């Protein structure tokens, strides 16, 4: 079955510390991969996406993610977290072909940032 797993439901880091949010997927073929962020009271915003090419992708707000095909993972990273990064983060994957382009979503990781 197709699925996306975000193993960490909640993570707390100190401001200035590095961050890694994990995402693993189960899919028939290499999908498109996305990370979205939902800040408190805000809508969902795309952070970054992987389609092809370089497996290390850069996104907005200083985030990056690395696609590892052998591990079926697409982990999100940031070298130094800011208090404003406190939010809910969702990983999603979607098909490259076919007539149904519905995304499969993880359940999200809630990030808290200590001052």
């Amino acid at each position, binding site marked *: 079955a197709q699925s996306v797993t975000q193993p960490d439901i909640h993570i707390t880091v100190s401001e200035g510390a590095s961050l890694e949010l994990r995402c693993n997927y189960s899919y028939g073929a290499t999908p498109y991969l996305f990370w979205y962020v939902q800040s408190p009271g805000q*809508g*969902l*915003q*795309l952070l970054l996406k992987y*389609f092809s090419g370089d497996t290390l992708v850069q996104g907005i707000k200083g985030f990056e993610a690395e696609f590892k095909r052998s591990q079926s993972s697409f982990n999100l990273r940031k070298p130094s977290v800011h208090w404003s990064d406190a939010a809910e983060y969702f990983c999603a994957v979607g098909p490259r072909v076919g007539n*149904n*382009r519905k995304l499969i*979503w*993880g*359940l999200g990781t809630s990030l808290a940032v200590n001052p």
Partner: protein
Amino acid sequence: GAGVSQSPSNKVTEKGKDVELRCDPISGHTALYWYRQRLGQGLEFLIYFQGNSAPDKSGLPSDRFSAERTGESVSTLTIQRTQQEDSAVYLCASSSGLAGPNEQFFGPGTRLTVL
């Protein structure tokens, strides 16, 4: 350009009443999605429209839920005989459809409260 818009932003209703939620996708986007997000939870897929194809209704939780879309424009999500467990934020997203990566753009959501 204009993003995805949703109305109303907030809706309070009494148990047993019907409600209609509206979504205006980004112009030219052929795909439209409805999601439900309960407080502190992830995204729950409800329904997906792709052009003139039959919609993917696999996520609708009961026959009280239905949605329509006129061509490639506005969509309405209708919940009949609302129940307290229907209280949630209802999110709409649109994407450019089958051509290329299916990145979804989200609206601000409608917060539904059933008393």
